[in-house]
C-alpha cells in the first residue's frame, strides 16, 4: 500500500509536469540568452539556468515529456510483442517454444547500443530510433517472463479443469493464463519503464537519442558534465529526476502487483 502511494505520487508528479509543459512552462526551454548564463537558484529561475542561459526548470518539465514518451512507446512495443510471443512459446508446440527461446537469446546477445547506433546511422539518431532500439531490446525480457509464468500456470489443475470443460487452447490462454500472469507483466512493465528511462538518458547522453533543441534529461546531463565541479546543480537536477522516475516506476509496479491480486485484498479469512 505504501509503495503504491509513494510510487503513484512520484509517477503522478512526473506525468503532471509533462502534461503541464504542453500548456505552460516558466520560460521557453529552448530560449538561449547569453545574459542569463549560469544563473543560480532565485525567484525568477527556480532551478537556475544552464550555460546557454536556458531555464532549467522549464527544460526539466519538457524533458519529462520526452522521458514518458520514450518509456511508453518502448515498453508498449516490448509488451505487445513480447507477451504474445511468450504465451505462444509456452502453450504452442515444443519446437515453437524452442525457436522463441533461441531468437530471444539472439536478441539479448545483440547490444541495444549497437542497435541504436545502426538505427541512428540508417535513419538519423532521434527520439524515435532510441525508442525502437530500447523497445526491441526489452522484448526478450517480456517474452521470457511471460513464457515462464505461463508455463507455470499451464501446469495448474484449473487449466486442466478448463480443458476438461472443453475450452480450446486460445481461450485458455486468454481466460486463464493472461489474467494470472498479468500481475507479473505489470511489474515487469514498470521495471522496464525504469530501465527505458535510464536507457533513453544514456542514449541521449551519447548523442544517439533525442537531438537538440528538444530537451531531454539525458542531454541535460551531457551538456553540463564539464560543469560538474563549478555548477553541480546542473548535473544533480536531471540526475535526481532520472533516479526518482526509476524509483517511482518500480514502487508503482510493486504496489500494483499487490493490488491486482484478489487473494491479497483484505477480504476476511473465510478460506485460508
Amino acid at each position, binding site marked *: 500500500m505504501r509503495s503504491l502511494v509513494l510510487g503513484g505520487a512520484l509517477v503522478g508528479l512526473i506525468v503532471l509536469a509533462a502534461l503541464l509543459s504542453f500548456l505552460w512552462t516558466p520560460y521557453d526551454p529552448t530560449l538561449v540568452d547569453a545574459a542569463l548564463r549560469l544563473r543560480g537558484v532565485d525567484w525568477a529561475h527556480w532551478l537556475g539556468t544552464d550555460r546557454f542561459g536556458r531555464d532549467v526548470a522549464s527544460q526539466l518539465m519538457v524533458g519529462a515529456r520526452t522521458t514518458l514518451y520514450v518509456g511508453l512507446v518502448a515498453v508498449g512495443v516490448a509488451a505487445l510483442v513480447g507477451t504474445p510471443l511468450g504465451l505462444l512459446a509456452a502453450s504452442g508446440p515444443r519446437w515453437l517454444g524452442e525457436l522463441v527461446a533461441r531468437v530471444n537469446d539472439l536478441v539479448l546477445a545483440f547490444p541495444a547500443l549497437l542497435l541504436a547506433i545502426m538505427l541512428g546511422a540508417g535513419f538519423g539518431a532521434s527520439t524515435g530510433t532510441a525508442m525502437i532500439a530500447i523497445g526491441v531490446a526489452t522484448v526478450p525480457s517480456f517474452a521470457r517472463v511471460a513464457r515462464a509464468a505461463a508455463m507455470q500456470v499451464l501446469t495448474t489443475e*484449473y487449466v486442466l*479443469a478448463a*480443458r476438461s470443460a*472443453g475450452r480450446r487452447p486460445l481461450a485458455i490462454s486468454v481466460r486463464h493464463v493472461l489474467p494470472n500472469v498479468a500481475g507479473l507483466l505489470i511489474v515487469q512493465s514498470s521495471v522496464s519503464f525504469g530501465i527505458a528511462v535510464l536507457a533513453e538518458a544514456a542514449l541521449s547522453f551519447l548523442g544517439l537519442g533525442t537531438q537538440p533543441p528538444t530537451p531531454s534529461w539525458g542531454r541535460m546531463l551531457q551538456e553540463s558534465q564539464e560543469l560538474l565541479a563549478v555548477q553541480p546543480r546542473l548535473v544533480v537536477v536531471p540526475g535526481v529526476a532520472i533516479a526518482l522516475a526509476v524509483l517511482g516506476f518500480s514502487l508503482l509496479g510493486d504496489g500494483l502487483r499487490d493490488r491486482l491480486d484478489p487473494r491479497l485484498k483484505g477480504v476476511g479469512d473465510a478460506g485460508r
Partner: protein
Amino acid sequence: MIVAEELSRSYRRPRSTPFGPRPQVRALHEVSFEVVAGQRFGVVGESGSGKSTLVRLLAGLDSPSSGAVRFDGQLVSGRRQRDLDFLRSRLQVVFQDPMGSLDPRMRVADIIAEPLVAQRIPGRAERVAEVLAAVGLPASAADRYPHQFSGGQRQRICLARALAPRPQVLIADEPVSALDVSVRAQVLNLLSDLVDRYSLTLVFVSHDLSVVRHVCDTVAVLKSGQLVELGAVEQVYRRPRHPYTRQLVRAVPTLRGALAGITAADLTP
C-alpha cells in the same frame, strides 16, 4: 460406458546429467477394466501409483503411450482436443486440489459457467444458480472469489462446475483427501446425493480404501501403475487377495481398531 484397454503411459524424466539418458517412468502399465453405466467405480493406490494419470487418460486430457480408452463405444484416446466435444459434455472431472483447480482470478459464477461457455450451452445464469443450490452454496457465492471459501466449500464449487453441463459420468480424483473429517462427511454425503439424484456413473479415486468402501460398489487397486486387484468393494475389503491390497486395508487406522489395541506398528507390514 468407459472401457480401458491395456492402457499404458510412460513419462520421460528430464535428464539428470547433460548427456545422460532420459529415464522413463512407467506411470501406468497395461491397465484394463470396464465401468458400466450407473456403477460407482473406485480406484485406490498409494501416492505415485498412477491414479491421477489414469484419470487424465479417461477424461481425454492426456494420450496413452499405448492402449485405448473408449467412451460409449467411441474412441477417446489419441483424438484431437476438438474432436472430444462429445466427451466434454458427458463426462466431467473433479480434481484433487480444491484450491488448485479453481482459477484464483475468476469469480465463482464464471468458474461454474466455464463448461457451459466452452460448449455453448444456453441458459447460463439459471444453470449456475441451479447447481449452486444443488451443492448447498448460497446464491451470493456466485460473485465471490475462490479464496473467500473454506476447503469444503471450494470442493462444492468444483462439484457445481462439474455438474453444470449435466454430465452422465463424474470422475472425482481424491475429492476429500485435503479435507478434515467433518467436512469430508459433508462432501461425501453431497456426492452420494448428487450421484443418486442425477443418476451419475461415478469413478472415485482415493488412497484410502475405507473411503472408497463407503462410496463405491466396485474397486480397482493400482500398484506402481499396474492393476493388481479388481472386484466388488466388500469382497476386496474383507478378503483382499493381493498382498498389496492387504497392506492397504491394514494401513488405514480406525477408531475401533485403535481402541481394540492396534498400534502404529500394526499398521505397517
